[in-house]
């Protein structure tokens, strides 16, 4: 088994997803099943193969670095559940 209980909690924390103890064992089982499945990739020789896909850069395709003005503060704030004037609000960050 690749993913132990501790690893489940670690990646849940990294993912910013709260999981309960009861969920944890099901998640662990599912993740191990998936890891088992993708382990097949270990069977293949990848020596000398690039890790970059479709790596052509077309410099002529770069757009102009121009200033655009989006005066849409109200639009952007329309969807939040918590705001104050022109700001999103969150729990206190600084002690």
């Amino acid at each position, binding site marked *: 088994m690749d993913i132990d209980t501790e690893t489940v909690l670690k990646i849940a924390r990294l993912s910013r997803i709260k999981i309960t103890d009861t969920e944890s064992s099901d998640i662990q089982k599912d993740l191990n099943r998936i890891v088992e499945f993708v382990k097949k*990739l270990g069977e293949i020789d990848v020596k000398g193969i690039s890790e970059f896909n479709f790596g052509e850069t077309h410099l002529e395709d770069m757009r102009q670095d121009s200033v655009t003005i989006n005066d849409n503060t109200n639009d952007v704030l329309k969807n939040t559940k918590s705001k104050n004037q022109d700001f999103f609000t969150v729990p*206190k960050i600084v002690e």
Partner: protein
Amino acid sequence: MKLTELGIKDLRELLNNKEVSATELTNTFIQNIEKSSKLNAFIEKTFDKALIQAAEADKIIGTESQKSLCGIPLGIKDLFCCKDVKTQAASAILDNFIPPYESTVTQKLWNEQAIMLGKLNMDEFAMGSSNETSTYGPAINPWRSPESDDFLTPGGSSGGSSAAVAANLCAGATGTDTGGSIRQPASFTGTVGLKPTYGRCSRWGIIAFASSLDQAGPITKNVTDNAILLRAMSGFDPLDSTSANIEVPNYEKELGKDIKGLRVGLAKEYSLQKDDSEAQRKLEQTIFLLENMGVEIVEVSLPHTEFALPTYYVLAPAEASSNLARYDGVRYGHRANLDTNDSILELYEKTRSEGFGTEVKRRILIGTYVLSSGYYDAYYKRAQKVRNLIKNDFDKVFKNVDLILTPTTPTSAFTLGSKGTQDPVEMYMNDIFTVPANLAGIPALSLPVGLDEQGLPLGVQLIGNNWQEPLILKTAFNLENALAFERNPKNWWA
């Protein structure tokens, strides 16, 4: 034949000849949708908007201002942001999200004067192969086996799109395809679905799942409609740095030309498990028809095919874990209720825990794992390399043949609730024939070829090299005419 059973091309003719008005047509589709709530295909209806657009279209039809989709009622997958229309990617975490902007692809459709009937059901964030991960519950396949009353999946993730088109709730629909999410639903519902070349359609305003694989495309009743809709959806967009600055052909003009001398490859790695199945016979019949058209059938090999699914199930979750980091409860969508002393970390963790469904969480977690320190090289980096080997397989084969013919899916539509409940990988196996085209970035289309032993639609897949959509559509059109598939399921839902 009923008005709503007609495709885009036929409806365009009726509208142009003033045999029907856009308003009448739109009202007919609205009535069909209202009667079809059992199918759970439309999750947000925009009928007021549709009737305003239809009235506009009626003024324009017959004038010089008329565009290619004037007065044609369409359905839009819920992954496309539409300005001032609730857009949730079928996820609870985007609770009541009203985009302040329009996706490029849908804007192009409105510029062509199409009519928007509403948003279509899908798997949550396009992660699923059966529509069962939707926060709205699954869309239902209008096709049923004559021997059973079981509800079948319309496929996923674009299951609302495929169900709506098959059940004549809209003239055509948009879909998106990251690992087969247009082609598998098309195959399950007797519709035509095309995943274009990566970069053909702009991804701007489409809620991101796995950005190096995601591509928008049309689901339609027939090949001609697919060509018409694809042209409207395609084109360069400065807002998507991966969109290609390549001219959009008039795909419709290609249709009807003969395909004599074409070389079509059959890959031994894409074989069906049962040699005696109706699916196998339908595939053989398709080959026979192609040969009759003067096509040369060539055996080819794509040796890394067996690694495609494991590659996909590393790369797609890795990209998803990064893309879905934006759902934090701060700026839009669901926000958890917090206890007095909760910090910002609890805001993130509780919001994401409550908002995401099981499959989405699973993919974020596995994606985080394969990208995390100590595992990155063994999984993510290795999968990136294998992706290149898969791409190289196709490059080699396309030196020898023009197209590749495969089944679209291993089976016809399955019963809702029958797969993946104990083992998530069981559901992933559905994508076995469709995932390689996404990894290689190349276009592929699913065409209905007939019914299996259970009376359910089967599809074949035509895969082409980059930008070969015209050839794929031309070949599919010839096959469609030869096969004469009866595309209307028996109506049990209205």
